[in-house]
Every structure is written in C-alpha cells, then in structure tokens.
C-alpha cells in the first residue's frame, strides 16, 4: 500500500507541476485574466479531486487527459452558472462563443487540444510579463500560476518571506483584473524586453530544479525539463528566438549535461572536482554548443552568454585539473560588470582562489564593500570555511556552522556537515 501511495505521490508531484500551468493558461482564456483566481481555483479543485480518486482507484491510463477533462467540465459548470454574470466579460470576440450553448462545448473541446495548450502557456507567460508589472512580481506570478510553485518555494527562491510573496501575488492579480491583460504574444517592439523577463523566469525554474533548496529529492528533473521545454519553445518560435534565448538554452544544456554526476547515491551534492566526467551527457553538451553558436548572432552579450561560456569551459575540460580557471575568472569579472549579484561575486571569489590562491581571496574580501550582502549567503561562509580549514580549524568550524544555518538545502547541509566532520578528523 505504501509503495502504491508513493507511486501516486511521485506521479502527481511531477504531473501536477507540469500540467497545472498549462491548465491555468487555458482557463485564463476561458474566464479572462481578470479572473485568474477562478482559473487557479479550478485547477486546484481538479488536482485535489485527482488525488482523492487516484488514491482509491489508481491513476488513469492517461492522467493528463483525465485532468484536462475534469478541469474542462468544472469550467463548463462555472460558465453555465455565470452566463450572464458581470464577473465574466463575454464581449470579447474570442469568448462570446463560450456564452452560447451552440458553441460552448466545441470551443471548450478545441481549447484543450495539446498543441493549443502549449502555445497558451507561452502567451500566458508573456501576459505575466506585462511591462507595467515589476520584474519580481512577474516572476512571482509565473512561478505561482504557471509552474505550480507553492508560495513557500517562491519565498525561498527569492530569499524572502511567504507573506511578501502573497502580497506580491495579490497586487499582481489586482493589476490583471483592473487592466484585463490578455494572454498574447507582445508586439515586435516590446518583444525583446518581455522575452527577457520570461527567460529570467525560465532560468529561475531551472535553478530551482538544479539547486533544489527545499527537498530531499535533490535534482528535480521535471523542473529542469520544464524550464528547458519552455526555453525550447522560445527557441522554436520565430518571434522569440533571440540570441539571449539561445544562450540561456545553451547554458541550461551545459548544466543539465552534468546533473547525473552531481548527485550521489544518497542525494548528496558531488562537487565539480570529484564528479565522474564520464557520466556527463555528451549529447547535451553538443546541443549546448550548437545553441551557443546560434546565440552568437548580433553584437549584444547577455549574462546568459557569459554564464554559458563559463559552463562550457567546465564541460570542455576532460579532467578537473584541465579547467581553464584564468579564462573563467575573466568571464566572471565580465559577468559581475554587466549583471552584478551576490552569487556571481561569491562564485568569482572561489575562482580567484583557484587562479591566485587563498590569500588573494582574503584580500579581495578585505577590499570589498559588499560584505554585508555576502554575509547573508551560506556560500560566503562556506568559502571562508574552506580557506581557514588548512590554517585555523576553529575559525573554519564557525564558518561552516554559520553556512549550515543559512542554507535551506538539505543536500548543501549534508555537504557542509561532511566538511565539518573532516575538520574534526584533521584536528585529531
């Protein structure tokens, strides 16, 4: 029974992530984005019903089709009950057919066709990236409504509280309601900026899967797949295949190529020097290189270009010792200039250590004005722990312990505790 339960949980976890966004995107078309909450509620109801029924009877042969059918029927019920309600605006040329019984079922049937659903997801992502919504609110909304993220998971990705995230979501939904934002591809002159916001979100989804801060299952391949699938959609669409889109796709390929070697048997992180490079997916590395070639059109260099170049340097080194750290340092310095962030700066510190040694890292830290920001991140303390481990064990221990406190990732915690344990054996 337990195994059965586990299987259902595994299936629903994966499937719900994949399908909830698509269903919300379709339902947003049905009810209008001003009623996004109704769309989300229908999806939530559908998923709950699936959980209840599948637990008793087992999952159906085609779970996605089951979910679509249930969501569709729930939507039809709501439309019938509210045919003349002012809450729903049927004046829209696309939606007027949903008001008439002559056409409602047929329209609904057509809306749930797989090829339509996929485009709807993209259109909805663009709607979420409306220029009048702040970037952080855009990303929050996409993660919540289209990627099936919980408020808690988003809060952790943003290093903020659930309350803040809830407020952001509320405000953004108000905006949708007031402005009746339509899910559609943006006009050409806005395409670039909007595609970039979409891209950022896709990359966040990817990172959520790659670094997975909130569960024992370290690598959420479904998240990686979903992010890469979405990015691939942007790559295959004539309007959205921008250089930075290709670059982001390349970056994700290079990262994804290495995930199998990044995780140990107990879900622990295996660091780059110890990774079994024969496990790296050469096909994905080749795909990534091909995308990187395509990304080289135009003169603009995005952060994705540089990050992809860094990831490529790692992929290109046959052994850890062959890594071209000097070039990677140049790339990190460049990256920090065009897209400064705590994580980039901390990674750069690590690379400085590789090229110039620990003393150089400490000097760099001494000269930096960024320490207050760095101190909030576990990686900063982990780096210091690493540096002090050979000179001052007690200091190293304090650093590692601080790092353990600051990370929410179970696998990072494991890794840090391992380092702490090693300090102990070295002292003895």
């Amino acid at each position, binding site marked *: 029974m337990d195994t059965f339960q586990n299987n259902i949980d595994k299936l629903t976890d994966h499937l719900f992530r994949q399908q909830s966004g698509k269903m919300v995107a379709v339902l947003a078309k049905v009810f209008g984005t001003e009623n996004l909450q109704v769309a989300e509620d229908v999806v939530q109801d559908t998923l709950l019903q699936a959980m209840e029924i599948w637990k008793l009877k087992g999952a159906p042969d085609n779970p996605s089709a089951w979910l679509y059918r249930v969501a569709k029927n729930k939507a039809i019920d709501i439309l019938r009950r509210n045919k003349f309600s002012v809450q729903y605006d049927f004046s829209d*040329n696309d939606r007027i057919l949903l008001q008439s019984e002559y056409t409602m079922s047929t329209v609904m049937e057509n809306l749930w066709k797989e090829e339509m659903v996929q485009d709807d997801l993209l259109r909805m992502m663009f709607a979420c990236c409306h220029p009048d919504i702040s970037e952080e609110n855009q990303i929050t909304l996409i993660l919540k409504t289209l990627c099936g993220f919980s408020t808690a998971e988003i809060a952790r990705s943003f290093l903020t509280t659930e309350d803040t995230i809830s407020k952001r979501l509320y405000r953004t939904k108000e905006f949708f309601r007031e402005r009746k934002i339509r899910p559609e591809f943006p006009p050409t002159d806005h395409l670039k900026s909007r595609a970039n916001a979409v891209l950022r979100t896709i990359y966040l989804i990817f990172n959520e899967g790659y670094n997975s801060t909130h569960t024992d299952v370290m690598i959420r391949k479904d998240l990686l797949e979903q992010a890469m699938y979405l990015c691939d959609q942007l790559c295959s669409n004539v309007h959205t295949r921008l250089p930075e889109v290709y670059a982001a796709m390349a970056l994700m390929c290079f990262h994804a190529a290495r995930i199998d070697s990044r995780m140990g048997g107990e879900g622990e992180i295996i660091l780059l020097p110890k990774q079994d490079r024969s496990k790296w997916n050469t096909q994905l590395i080749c795909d990534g290189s091909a995308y990187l070639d395509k990304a080289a059109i135009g003169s603009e260099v995005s952060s994705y270009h540089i990050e992809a170049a860094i990831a490529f340097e790692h992929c290109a080194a046959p052994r850890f010792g062959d890594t071209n750290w000097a070039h990677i340092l140049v790339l990190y310095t460049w990256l920090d200039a065009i897209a400064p962030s705590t994580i980039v700066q901390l990674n750069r510190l690590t690379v400085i250590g590789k090229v110039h040694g620990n003393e150089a890292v400490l000097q760099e830290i001494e000269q930096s004005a960024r320490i207050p920001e760095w101190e909030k991140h576990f990686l900063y303390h982990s780096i210091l722990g690493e540096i002090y481990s050979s000179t001052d064990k007690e200091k190293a221990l304090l650093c590692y312990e601080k790092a353990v406190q600051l990370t929410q990732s179970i696998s990072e915690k494991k890794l840090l505790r391992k380092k702490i344990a090693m300090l102990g054996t070295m002292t003895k």
Partner: protein
Amino acid sequence: MKQYMFLFRGGDAHAPGQSPEVQQAHMQLWMQWMGGLAQSGKLIGAQPLAQTGKILTGTKKVVTDGPFMEGKEMVGGYLMCKADTYDEAVEVAKGCPILVFEDGKVEVREMQEIKM
C-alpha cells in the same frame, strides 16, 4: 449598423437516435458559422431553447403549458447579430447549420427602433 434576430425552427440534430459523432459533427458546423460571425465582430449572442415552454395570454395572464404546436414549428433557438441591410443579414443566415435539414428554417427579423 442594424441588429437582426434569427429565429430557428425545425432541424433537430439532437433527435433521439442520432449518434454522438453525428451530433458532434453538427455542432462543429455551428462553431464554424458562429465563429466566423464572432471573428468579424458581428455576433451579439445566441442560445438554443428547450422544447418546453409556458405561454401567458391577455389581461388575465392565463398561463398555458407548451408544447404548443408541432416540433418543427417551434422556435428552437435564436441568434442576434449585426448587419447593415436585410440582404446582408440573409446572406449571413444562409450559412446557418439548421439549413442542412430539409425542414430547417431561419426567420430573419430586423430589430425595430421605437420612435416616440
């Protein structure tokens, strides 16, 4: 631009004995026709009507139950749309799927403005 009402009679695609496939194919025709109207922004609204009904008559408001006449004479549904002239409205009505049935009828009526 004027408004017209189409009243549909006869041509019941949902008559007992029709297979779901035939019914679905028929609804696809409604979808195409009304979809075209919606796309051009001329569709105002449309609904099928149930086979039951009540009729109220005169000052005494006498209520009688339907059905009041033979099925094919009953109004089975309506559609409201915009058109410039009767000719245009009639052209639009020619596409109505009810006319795939020999006994199907579309009555085209222009909405009247009451001038006081």
